[in-house]
C-alpha cells in the first residue's frame, strides 16, 4: 500500500465493534484451545492407563516362574473380568532347559476373544508377527536406555485405525532383561464437556463492560487503554477458567472411569468398593505373601501434575500393610496427571496480545479502512481466495518451516536438554552455523563430493549442458519440421514428443537399465559397434554422460514444441522479402528467425534452467549420485542429508541456499515476471 490512511477513531458503535470482534475471536480461539487440550488430556489418560496396566503386568510377569506359564493368562483374564479394555496381551521370554537357553521359547498370546485359552505365538502370523517386531524394538530400547532413560524403554503407539493402543515394555529380573510383555487395548477417549457456557458468559459481560467504558469514561485515549486492559483480562479469565474446568473434568473422569480398568493393578483406587477385587487381583498378580512394591514402583509417572494421591480416601493399602496376604511395600501409585495437556497459559496470552493489536488497529480506524479496501475489491479477493488459502496451508507454510529448519539441527541421542520440538522432532537452535558450515566448506574439503562448491559446480555444469543441448536439438528439429515441403511431418511431430508424454520416472528407470554395465543395451550397442564396454557408474564423466543423455532425451521435446510454436508465428513474408533482397539462409536465420524467436525462447530457457537445476528424479533414479556422490546435484545432495543422514537442519540450509541461487538467477534475468511460469516438479 502506498500511503497509510489517517487515524480516525470511529463512533461509539464502531468502537464497541472494534472491541467485540477481537473478543469474539478470543472466545472462539479459547474454545478451540480447550478442545485441543481436551483431546490431549484424553489421549494422555489413555496412555497413562495403558502404562499403568503394562507396568503392573510386566512387574507381575517378572515373578512368573518357568513352571507356571498359565499365570499370564490368569492375570489378563482377571483384568478382562474387571471390565478392562485389553484386547489381547502377549509375553515373550526365555526358557531354560538344561544348560541351554532357548530364546523366545515361551511365547504366549492371550486374546480377549479367547481369554482363558492362551495360545502359543506364531511368528508367521500377522498379529503375532507384530508382537515379535515390537518385542525386538523393546529389546533395542532396553539396551540403549535402561541406564539413562528408563521411561524410553516403553513402546507405545496408536494402531493404524486409531482406536487402540499397542504398548510393550521389558520384563526385568534383577536388573536383567528376561523378556518382553505387551498389551493392546482399546482407546476410550473420555467425553470431557467443553466449557461453552462459561466462555459465552465471560464474552458477553466483557463486551458489555467495554460498551459501558466507551460510553461513560471520558477521554478517548483513557477509554481505549481501559478497554485494552479489559481485553487482556478477558484472555486471562479464559485461561484460568478453562484450565480449571477442563482439568477438573479430566480428573473426575480419571478417578471414576479408569478405576474400572485398573482395578486389578492400580493401588490408588480411591473407592472403597473396589478394595476387595483389588486385593484379590493383587493376590493373583503377585502371589500370596509377595511384596507388590514392584508394581507401584514401576509406575513412577513422570511429570504427573496433580496428585490424586492427596484426594485418595484413607484406608488404602499403605506401605508395610498386608492385603489378603499380599504385603504392600510401597505407597499407592499416583494416577497419572491429566492436566499436562492443558497448558493454555502462553498460548492464550500470545493470542491475547495479537488480538490486542487487532483492537488497537480497529480502535484507531485502520480496520475500517482495511474493510472498505476488501469491500472495494471484493471480486478480486473472492476469486483469489480459494487458491490463496490452499497455497498458504500447503505451500507457504511448508516453505516457511523450511526456512525455520535451516537455523536448527535435529538432535539425535538422548541429550534432549535445551531442545525445541518442531513437528514432533527435537531440534537445537544453531543460529547461522549450518550456513557457515556449508558455505565455509568446514566439514568437507573442496575436492570432496559432499562439499557444497563441488556439488554447485556439478549442478551448474549439469544445468548449462542440459539446457544448451535442449535448445540446440529442439531448435534444429523445429527448423526442420517447419519446412512446408517436408513429408510425413505429422508423424514425426507425434513421434518426437513421446519422451515428454511418458512419465519421467519411468523413462529415468528405463535409462538406468539401459546403462547397466553387464546387461544394459547401451553397452551392447557399443560392443556391436566394435567399441568396448563402459563401466558407466565407476567414473564421474561416464555417469554424468548417462544422466545427461537421459535428461536430454527427456527434455528436448519441450523446447522443440516451444520453438515450433514461435516459428509458426513469424510471418512468412519476412523471409520472402529477405529472399528478394538476396539474403542467404544463414543471414535469414541470424537476422529474422533468431531475433523473433527470442521472446518465446527466453522464458522457456529460464524455466528450463530452473527445472533442470532441481531435476531430482533423473539424478536420483539414473546415477543415484554414483560414483561416490560425485554426480549428485544440490537438490539430491540435500535430500540425502535430510533423509539418509537425518540432518534436517543442514538439508534445510541447503534448500535455502538453492532458493537464493535461483532467486538471484531469476532476478538477474530481469524479465522474471514474464518468464515466470515457475518450476513445475
Amino acid at each position: 500500500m502506498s500511503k497509510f490512511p489517517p487515524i480516525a477513531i470511529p463512533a461509539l458503535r464502531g468502537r464497541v465493534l472494534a472491541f467485540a470482534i477481537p473478543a469474539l475471536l478470543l472466545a472462539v480461539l479459547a474454545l478451540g484451545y480447550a478442545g485441543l487440550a481436551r483431546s490431549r488430556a484424553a489421549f494422555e489418560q489413555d496412555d497413562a492407563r495403558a502404562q499403568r496396566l503394562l507396568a503392573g503386568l510386566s512387574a507381575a510377569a517378572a515373578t512368573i516362574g518357568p513352571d507356571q506359564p498359565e499365570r499370564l493368562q490368569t492375570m489378563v483374564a482377571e483384568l478382562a473380568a474387571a471390565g478392562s479394555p485389553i484386547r489381547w496381551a502377549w509375553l515373550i521370554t526365555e526358557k531354560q532347559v538344561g544348560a541351554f537357553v532357548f530364546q523366545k521359547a515361551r511365547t504366549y498370546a492371550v486374546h480377549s476373544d479367547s481369554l482363558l485359552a492362551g495360545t502359543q505365538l506364531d511368528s508367521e502370523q500377522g498379529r503375532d508377527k507384530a508382537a515379535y517386531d515390537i518385542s525386538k524394538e523393546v529389546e533395542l530400547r532396553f539396551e540403549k536406555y535402561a541406564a539413562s532413560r528408563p521411561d524410553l524403554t516403553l513402546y507405545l503407539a496408536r494402531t493404524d485405525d486409531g482406536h487402540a493402543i499397542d504398548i510393550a515394555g521389558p520384563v526385568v529380573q534383577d536388573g536383567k532383561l528376561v523378556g518382553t510383555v505387551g498389551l493392546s487395548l482399546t482407546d476410550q477417549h473420555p467425553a470431557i464437556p467443553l466449557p461453552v457456557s462459561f466462555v459465552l458468559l465471560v464474552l458477553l459481560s466483557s463486551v458489555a463492560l467495554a460498551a459501558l467504558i466507551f460510553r461513560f469514561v471520558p477521554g478517548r485515549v483513557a477509554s481505549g487503554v481501559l478497554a485494552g486492559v479489559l481485553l487482556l483480562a478477558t484472555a486471562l479469565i479464559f485461561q484460568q477458567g478453562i484450565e480449571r474446568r477442563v482439568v477438573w473434568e479430566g480428573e473426575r473422569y480419571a478417578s471414576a472411569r479408569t478405576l474400572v480398568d485398573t482395578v486389578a493393578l492400580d493401588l490408588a483406587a480411591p473407592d472403597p468398593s473396589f478394595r476387595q477385587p483389588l486385593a484379590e487381583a493383587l493376590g493373583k498378580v503377585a502371589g500370596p505373601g509377595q511384596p507388590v512394591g514392584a508394581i507401584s514402583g514401576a509406575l513412577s509417572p513422570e511429570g504427573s501434575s496433580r496428585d490424586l494421591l492427596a484426594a485418595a480416601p484413607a484406608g488404602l493399602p499403605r506401605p508395610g500393610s498386608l492385603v489378603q496376604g499380599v504385603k504392600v511395600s510401597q505407597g499407592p501409585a499416583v494416577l497419572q496427571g491429566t492436566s499436562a495437556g492443558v497448558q493454555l497459559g502462553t498460548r492464550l496470552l500470545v493470542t491475547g496480545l495479537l488480538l490486542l493489536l487487532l483492537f488497537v488497529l480497529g480502535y484507531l480506524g485502520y480496520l475500517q479502512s482495511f474493510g472498505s479496501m476488501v469491500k472495494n475489491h471484493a471480486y478480486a479477493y473472492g476469486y483469489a481466495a480459494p487458491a490463496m488459502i490452499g497455497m498458504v496451508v500447503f505451500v507457504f507454510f511448508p516453505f516457511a518451516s523450511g526456512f525455520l529448519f535451516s537455523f536448527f539441527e535435529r538432535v539425535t541421542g538422548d541429550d534432549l536438554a535445551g531442545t525445541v520440538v518442531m513437528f514432533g522432532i527435537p531440534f537445537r537452535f544453531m543460529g547461522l552455523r549450518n550456513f557457515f558450515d556449508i558455505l565455509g566448506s568446514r566439514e568437507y574439503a573442496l575436492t570432496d563430493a559432499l562439499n557444497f562448491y563441488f556439488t554447485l559446480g556439478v549442478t551448474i555444469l549439469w544445468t548449462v549442458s542440459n539446457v544448451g543441448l535442449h535448445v540446440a536439438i529442439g531448435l534444429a528439429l523445429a527448423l526442420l519440421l517447419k519446412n512446408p515441403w517436408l513429408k510425413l511431418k505429422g508423424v514425426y511431430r507425434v513421434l518426437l514428443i513421446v519422451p515428454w508424454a511418458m512419465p519421467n520416472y519411468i523413462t529415468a528407470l528405463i535409462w538406468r537399465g539401459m546403462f547397466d554395465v553387464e546387461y544394459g543395451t547401451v553397452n551392447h550397442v557399443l560392443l556391436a559397434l566394435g567399441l568396448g564396454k563402459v563401466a558407466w557408474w565407476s567414473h564421474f564423466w561416464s555417469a554424468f554422460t548417462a544422466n545427461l543423455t537421459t535428461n536430454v532425451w527427456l527434455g528436448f521435446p519441450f523446447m522443440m514444441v516451444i520453438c515450433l510454436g514461435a516459428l509458426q508465428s513469424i510471418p512468412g513474408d519476412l523471409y520472402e522479402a529477405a529472399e528478394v533482397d538476396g539474403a542467404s539462409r544463414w543471414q535469414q536465420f541470424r537476422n529474422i528467425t533468431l531475433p523473433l524467436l527470442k521472446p518465446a525462447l527466453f522464458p522457456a530457457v529460464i524455466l528450463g534452467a530452473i527445472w533442470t537445476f532441481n531435476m531430482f528424479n533423473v539424478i536420483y533414479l539414473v546415477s543415484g549420485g554414483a560414483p561416490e556422490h560425485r554426480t549428485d546435484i544440490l537438490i539430491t545432495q540435500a535430500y540425502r542429508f535430510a533423509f539418509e543422514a537425518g540432518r534436517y537442519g543442514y538439508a534445510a540450509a541447503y534448500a535455502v541456499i538453492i532458493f537464493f541461487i535461483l532467486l538471484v538467477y531469476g532476478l538477474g534475468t530481469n524479465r522474471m515476471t514474464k518468464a515466470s511460469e515457475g518450476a513445475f516438479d
Partner: protein
Amino acid sequence: MRKVRWYHQVLAQVVLVLVSVVTLYPVLWVVKMALKTGQGFAMTVNPLPTEFSLENFAYVIGRTDKDGTWLFGYQLFNSVVISVATTLIGVFLACTGAYAFSRFRFPGRQAGLMSFLVTQMFPGVLMMIPLFVILQKLGAITGGVVGLNSIWGLVMVYSTTAIPFCVWMLKGYFDTIPKELEESALIDGATQLQIFTRIILPLARPAIAVTALFSFMTGWNEFILAATFMNSETAYTLPVTLRSYVGSYSTEWGHFAAGAIIVSVPVMALFFALQKYLVGGLTAGAVKG
C-alpha cells in the same frame, strides 16, 4: 520461395528417421521387456519384441496381497480418483486465481504473484516433513478425511503444489483475451460470474486443457509423497508399486515394463489428445505477456 531440391528432402528424412529411432529406442525396450517372459534386461541390440507373452501383464494386474486383496484394483482406483480429483480441484483453483490476478488490480496483487513464483524455487522434496505434519494435524481435525493415509490429503497437496505454475500459465493466457469483450458484456447486463464462466473460460479452453493435463500428470505420476503419506499397499497409487519393482539389488524388469505400459498409456493418450493445445496454452502468455 527458393527451390527445394530432392536431396533436401532425403537429408531431412534421414536426420528425422535417425532422431526418431533414438527417441523411440527406450520406448520399444519397454514394450519388448513387457512382452518377454522372465525378469532380466534382455541383452541384445534389437529393440523389437521377439516374444509375445502376456505373463508380465497378468502378474502385474493380478497382484494380490496375502489376504487375497486385489492390490492392482485398489491402486488403480486410488490413482484414478486422485488424478481426476486433483485435475478438477487444481483447474478450479488455478482458473479462479489466475482470473483474479489477470483482470483485477488490487492491493497485494504483485506480492501474491511474486510469492507464487518464489516458492517454486524452493526444492519441493524438502517440504515433505512439514507437509507430513500438516496432513497429520488436518487428519486429526477432519477425522481422517483429509490427512495422512487418505486420498483427499494427497489430492489437496497435489492440487495446491501445482497452483503456481498453472496460475502463471493461465494468467498469461487470460491477459491475451481482450478486455473489450468483458466491458461490452457488462453493458449488456452480465454479472461478474457470468463474464467469468460464459466468456473467459470458454475462450481460454486451450490453456485450461494444458492446466488440466499438467494437474492430471501430477496426480498420476507422483510417487515420493504418495509412498511417504500412505502407509498400506491398498492405499498406494500405481507409481509407488511400479517404482518398487526396480530395487537397488534386483529389478523385476518384466513386471516393471508391463506396469510402465499400463501406467503410461492413459497419460500418453491424454497428452496426445491435448497436444494441439500445448503450443498455444504454453506460449501465449510468454509471447504477448
